[in-house]
């Protein structure tokens, strides 16, 4: 029989913080990049040559693939404990705020009011995720205090 310490040692890759950081970075950067590229592509004022459409499409697909990979890592390959979720939530808020600022600038320059809605929507989604993560962590902390 393997000893518990053997098992703990073998579980280290699953618990590696770098795997979580990598997955989170891929998810957030992929989503932010996809939203920003999509906004630029859709609000392009002049007709674009086909090659540029292809370039936008490929870059957008690349961002979505990275976002999908990050989501898969976080959902399936590594456990996201309560504190991890809170940290991930705040990173998502920061990234979506930057994306919202970028979208607002694009909206002003290209006179596209809809972008003023998309940015805050992203921030709102990230804020809800962070709120839920905090609520779950607080519930666990309360339960821990009750049981201690």
């Amino acid at each position, binding site marked *: 029989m393997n000893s518990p310490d053997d098992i*703990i040692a073998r579980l280290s890759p699953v618990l590696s913080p770098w795997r979580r950081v990598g997955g989170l970075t891929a998810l957030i950067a992929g989503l932010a990049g996809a939203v920003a590229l999509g906004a630029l592509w859709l609000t392009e004022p002049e007709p674009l040559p086909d090659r540029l459409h292809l370039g936008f499409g490929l870059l957008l697909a690349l961002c979505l693939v990275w976002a999908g990979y990050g989501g898969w890592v976080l959902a399936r390959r590594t456990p996201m404990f309560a504190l991890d979720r809170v940290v991930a939530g705040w990173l998502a808020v920061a990234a979506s705020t930057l994306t919202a600022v970028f979208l607002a600038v694009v909206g002003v320059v290209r006179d596209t009011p809809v972008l003023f809605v998309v940015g805050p929507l992203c921030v709102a989604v990230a804020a809800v995720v962070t709120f839920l993560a905090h609520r779950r962590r607080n519930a*666990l902390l309360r339960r821990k205090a009750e049981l201690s």
Partner: protein
Amino acid sequence: MSDELLVVRCQLGERDALAELVRTWHKPVWTYVRRMLDAERADDVTQEVWVAVLRGLPRLKESGRFAPWLFTIARRAVADRLRAEYAQPPPETQPQPAGPQGDAFEAALDRAELVGALSALPVRERDVLALFYLEDFSLEDCALICGVPVGTVKSRLNRARRLLSEHLTRKGYGHELA
């Protein structure tokens, strides 16, 4: 420290609690898996169980129901392994290690008889017998772990008891069982 507190601390992300959880539950999990598989496969499957437990632990809603949840995962891992191996030709017989000496040897023989009798049972009956009698789970928890109604657990237990009794009687333990 209660299991529930340990699980809550794990869900919060405390690494030392995770290590303690593994130390507390590793042997019961391995013992359960070992009753269904040989030692070498039991090691592999037990490790798979712990990986699945760690990945699923943050999503466990009822932290006070950790044990049935853990054994549900263990049971699924065993079933997956058996299902994968049923399609393959039977493995060659493994050489048995040398046994211990004296009284310990007798005890090991008795245990081997019991393990042998358990191994002779069909997987479903062996599974429910191990959970109910050896892991001390209630009928309801056995039903939850096996994913069947309580009535089915009772009928499997009845059949397991009968088959075990018949097997041990054939081996000459009849007067001790009476």
